[in-house]
């Protein structure tokens, strides 16, 4: 089976966020970048499946040269190949644009399962799984926490509001992973050494069969028009706790009369 894993290279959640000049993006100086945590579940499941059933795992990302570090991490954990669609020179690209570029390259590769995370942490759009599936003309199941392999397809469990759904999907298809699916492995020393020797295939939008004018510039439908730090929260109102019963009564009074949430 051929597995494609889409990874987003994102700022570590602990990273301090500063707004860059221009006010629409973050200042990337001093940002530590990681493979988006959900994509780690996707990669892990692809690797586990390959180990059990054979096949290949290809990691793919759309991003600038620094994203190669994320791809190397995937190679070190056991991916066979890595592809980067170069974002340099395109400027802002919205989710549909990313989906178009990914779809363009994935169409040229054999693919039984396209693995993704349920969201790219940081920008948290949570739209690419259904979008990419649509552009590839594939079914998808998102937010998967458990997976069973069946003849020609999968049986996936996912969490919805107040319930769990069991979804049946034939392959080929797109699977969006989330926490609970597995415990991602660490790269072994051997894996890290091996990954250094592998090459990352860098592709242009043209290689993806995509005219840059259809994903960048005027073609961007949803734009980031302003990025700002959140307004400072008011300082906490501390309630003395010497007498728990009194403290609790006072808190509930405030919640009812001042905050008006009870």
């Amino acid at each position, binding site marked *: 089976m051929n597995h494609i894993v889409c990874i987003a290279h994102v700022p570590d959640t602990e990273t301090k*966020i500063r707004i860059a000049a221009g006010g629409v993006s973050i200042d990337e100086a001093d940002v530590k970048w990681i493979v988006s945590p959900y994509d780690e579940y996707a990669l892990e499941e692809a690797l586990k499946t390959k180990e059990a059933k054979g096949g290949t795992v290809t990691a793919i990302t759309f991003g600038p040269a620094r994203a190669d570090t994320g791809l190397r991490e995937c190679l070190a954990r056991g991916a066979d190949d890595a592809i980067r669609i170069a974002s340099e020179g395109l400027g802002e690209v919205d989710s549909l644009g990313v989906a178009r570029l990914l779809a363009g390259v994935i169409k040229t590769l054999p693919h039984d399962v396209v693995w993704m995370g349920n969201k790219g942490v940081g920008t948290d759009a949570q*739209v690419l799984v259904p979008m990419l599936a*649509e552009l590839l003309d594939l079914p998808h199941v998102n937010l998967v926490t458990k997976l069973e392999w069946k003849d020609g397809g999968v049986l996936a469990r996912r969490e919805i509001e107040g319930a769990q759904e069991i979804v049946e999907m034939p392959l080929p298809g797109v699977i969006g992973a989330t926490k609970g699916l597995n415990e991602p492995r660490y790269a072994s020393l051997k894996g890290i050494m091996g990954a250094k020797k592998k090459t990352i295939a860098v592709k242009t939008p043209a290689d993806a069969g995509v005219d840059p004018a259809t994903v960048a510039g005027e073609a961007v439908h949803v734009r980031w028009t302003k990025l700002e730090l959140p307004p400072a929260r008011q300082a906490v109102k501390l309630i003395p706790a010497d007498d728990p019963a009194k403290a609790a009564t006072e808190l509930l009074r405030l919640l009812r009369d001042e905050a008006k949430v009870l």
Partner: protein
Amino acid sequence: MSNVLVFIEQRDGKVRKSSLEALTLGRNLSAKTGGALAAVVAGSGISGLAAELAGYGAAKVFVADKPELQLFSCEGYTAALDAAATAFKPSIVLASATVMGRDVAPRFAARRGVSVLSDVMTLDVAAGRLTGERPVYSGKARVLVTAAPSAEIQVATPRPNVFPASKADVAAAGEVVPLDLGTLRIRAKVVKVEAAQAGEIDVAEADKIVTGGRGIKGPESWSVLRALCHELGAALGASRAAVDAGWIGHEHQVGQTGKVVSPSLYIACGVSGAIQHLAGMGSSKVIVAINKDPEAPIFKVATYGIVGDLFQIVPAMTEAAKKLKA
């Protein structure tokens, strides 16, 4: 003039509250631009829902009523939305950012060659263009997104529990328009739904949440928090530390790798307030922190705080809540 089409999520024949929020929002947007408002709903045996939707201002209700739409399939439900859009020609399409809305809206958008204003906490229209805001980077920044003029259809998914739902002053016509979807191509489909424990409110939908972290010490302490939940009508949340320790299921987890919630009241008990936890609950309207460590970061985002032992404070709150109700 912007016609607005709202995707309505029904489960077991009941319209979700979040869909009524989206419909109310759609009504406000259409009123602002002088456009018309319509709703679309898919399922089986659901034609009766139109009256309720008319009460919220839907002039037309597109209904895809078919046995094979009884359970959710993204392809089937997207086909319904797509057919309604073809008939109604909206310039704005809304679906609440629930699990279902997050499946259907992006698939529809990709089919129409546009992107999505995803998970917005504010949404407005000016000169026919949608703008909305949402927190990004674990709540450390806030972005304003705008639909460009080149987008023929603007698709947005408003976050549940943020926008109010209210009936229209005067009910609209609610004209039922049956959708003929022809032969559906459904590949991935729900074959079974397992409901959560009876009586449990899901954190993603709750208006009030009481959350326990590692500070509760063990699974036997949930009863202490559940008693407070019961008095307040709140859902039970958990930090990742509590979930990873095996004390409770992941469906309760709030945060970056759990659920993102925006209740009006969030009470964090024995939760330190790590950035990944704040990413999930930082947009709550009122936050209460109960923690014995005065330096815990949760106090930086809290509205009210009590520095103390949760095993003393939480039962006292339960008692106080009982008295308040009496």
